[in-house]
């Protein structure tokens, strides 16, 4: 602190008494209003810390006990209550009834779109286009377990080969080569026969050798002509849609080492109304059956 107040001779303003190489710093105090607003903000922050959760310790909730999570609960509850009348109707109606009622259908499609994005799009793609490696497209006309409302609803509710639901879709396909049911050469022959079903065999002799093996080992599930079986979840082999790839190497891999797509059962995870909304939405993706 300077012992006496010094004034700058040119501006007449007080100096702080600090001097550097002959330059003196003028003392220009903050405006009063600014200072008081600053004090007020400090006071405000103290009150705030006392009232609200502001300290980074668990349990430091402030005297009001307010938390963001606590405030969210009633909002979600109110949202649920607002939707409940519509959801109750969707829960009771069958997917066919929902699709036939314009109001329910519009609600189901809007809600189904969101539920699909949240729960299904991870594997089946945003528009239900599927993904390579066993995630079937829902936008085409090839339905492994059926594309009717009931079949779609069942698939969503119980899932596929998941061990969670007794009514889960699909049975396991044997690992023909690994388990010694067929030799590697036989697997190649059967693969060639499978390709011949869509007219793509390159080795007719091998395809011919594969035909009786196919009838013996595969036809019980996939059908004599490879028409598939929806009850078992055995896909059609005589069409252009290949879940795991339609080239020979992929088919050999499928026969020898087996394939088994898995889908969770959503019946226990989602509200029945949401399952119904999803059913109606998925049915519109590819036109259903």
């Amino acid at each position, binding site marked *: 602190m300077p012992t006496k107040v010094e004034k700058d001779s040119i501006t007449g303003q007080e100096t702080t008494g600090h001097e550097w190489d002959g330059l003196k710093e003028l003392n220009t105090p903050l405006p009063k209003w600014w200072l008081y607003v600053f004090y007020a903000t400090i006071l405000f922050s103290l009150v705030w810390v006392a009232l609200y959760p502001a300290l980074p310790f668990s349990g430091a909730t402030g005297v009001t006990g307010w938390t963001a999570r606590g405030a969210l609960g009633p909002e979600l509850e109110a949202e649920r209550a607002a939707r409940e009348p519509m959801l109750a109707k969707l829960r009771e109606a069958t997917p066919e009834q929902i*699709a036939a009622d314009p109001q329910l259908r519009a609600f189901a499609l809007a809600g189904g779109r969101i539920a699909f994005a949240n729960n299904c799009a991870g594997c089946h*793609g945003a528009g239900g*286009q*599927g993904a390579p490696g066993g995630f079937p497209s829902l*936008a*085409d*006309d090839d339905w492994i377990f059926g594309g009717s409302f009931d079949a779609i609803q069942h698939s969503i509710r119980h899932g596929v080969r998941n061990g969670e639901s007794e009514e889960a879709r699909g049975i396991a396909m044997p690992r023909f080569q690994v388990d010694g049911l067929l030799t590697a050469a036989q697997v190649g022959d059967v693969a060639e026969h499978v390709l011949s079903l869509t007219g793509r065999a390159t080795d007719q002799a091998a395809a011919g050798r594969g035909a009786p093996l196919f009838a013996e080992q595969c036809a019980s599930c996939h059908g004599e002509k490879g028409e598939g079986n929806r009850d078992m979840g055995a896909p059609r082999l005589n*069409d252009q*849609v290949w879940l795991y790839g339609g080239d020979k190497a992929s088919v050999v891999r499928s026969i020898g080492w087996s394939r088994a797509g898995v889908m969770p059962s959503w019946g226990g995870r989602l509200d029945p109304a949401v399952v119904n909304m999803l059913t109606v939405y998925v049915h519109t993706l590819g036109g259903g059956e």
Partner: protein
Amino acid sequence: MGEVKSPERTKPAAAQASTGSLYATRQKVYPKAVQGTVRKAKWLILALCLGLYYTVPLIRWDRGPEMPDQAVLVDMTHGRLFFFFIEIWPQEVYYLTGLLVLGAIGLFAATSLFGRVWCGFTCPQTVWTDLFMLVERRIQGDRNARMKLDLQPWTSEWLRKKALTHAVWLGIAAATGGAWIMYFNDALEMTPRFFTGQASLEVYFFFSLFTATTYLLAGWAREQVCTYMCPWPRFQAAMLDENSLVVTYRAWRGEPRGKAKQDGLGDCVDCRACVHVCPTGIDIRDGQQMECIGCGLCIDACDDVMGRLGRPKGLIAFETLTSLAASEAAAKPLPPGPQRLACGMQARRPQKIIRPRTLVYAGVLGLVVAIMGGAWLLRETTSLAVLRDRAPIFVKLSDGGIRNAYTLKLGDKTRGIETYSLVLDGPKGLSLIVLDAESDPAGAPVLTTRPDGITQWRALVTAPAGLRLPESVPVTFRLVDASGRTEVRTASVFLGPKP
């Protein structure tokens, strides 16, 4: 009763020159009451404008069930703008733009002909300020009384008068904010909810906003809005020329000014009546000024004084600068007196209405009216939006065919339910189905509209396995009515794998 002395209003430029500061403190203006033709016209316009503003939302207009029956309504919730028989959808907001363009050009035209009539007579700032000044005058008295009151210590009389003034101002401001929100909500339905605290937060926000701005702008800011805030006075000089009617002081007749009893002087007795009534506090005798809003109250004030002195009226008048210059030239050589007056008045020129500027404004105005009218008459009431699915881009079907999916949005701005057949124009072989749609006898899907709304459909277009198409093929969806006429066509593309 003598004039109460108050500091003479100095122009900002003068204040700046004397102190070197760019800041000029506001000199409060105390406009004096005035009677006369212009004042009557202003009261009439004020009553008309405010009457319209406060009552238009109450006008009812039957639009049928489930539609708002308010004649003028901006329905934000449902995205519609109603104006009597006109209904505009959000995507047609260009009609509103057109109206604003019309308003702007109309303003330009009016300004080039009649000067600042907008500022002086119809501008909301002027209208509400006029109303607020009326309240102030009724409660606190005229100019001198108000100036005295402001110099007084805070007595109970001071407090009573000031409090009453501000209370009435706030009441008017609240009515202004209240009327504003009625243009955006059904007035009859919302008013009870507003007063029982059940209206939405937006309603209370905009009510408060317009109440506060009315109170501040008309009660406190006043002429400062015109001088400092409003951009219009700054560029309206581009519309004004020497053939526009402006408020002018006929200096050739008034100067040299001086006491009425003195001989050899002009008609201006320097009573300062014109200055005292001016709502922006300027002296019109200084010539054309940016602060002058052209309200013409000084004309009334001066005419009143001239009448009392037994001199002809019109020392201050609405006149063109051309006419003023002609009078000036004719009267200049003559000494003050009746002869100079007669000579100057004789030399006046009629206003030139038709000149390049006004012709251009009229032309542009006509053009915009024609475009707007044409657009309105040719307005499509049915629309078809085609949104092609992007995920998946296309779907390969079990038989090797290729399918694209489209979302169709069929909008109808009329009240009826229309039915159209949907036809796909594109390469031969493409087939079209629309989910959940009926079919007409020819097998084409039938789409129905919703009154004043949009229906949504999902269309699947399939190319059979054998059809070889390029990666992208243009296709067109057409809506065909019962008589076979195409109502709307919308283009899209059909995508497939690289051939």
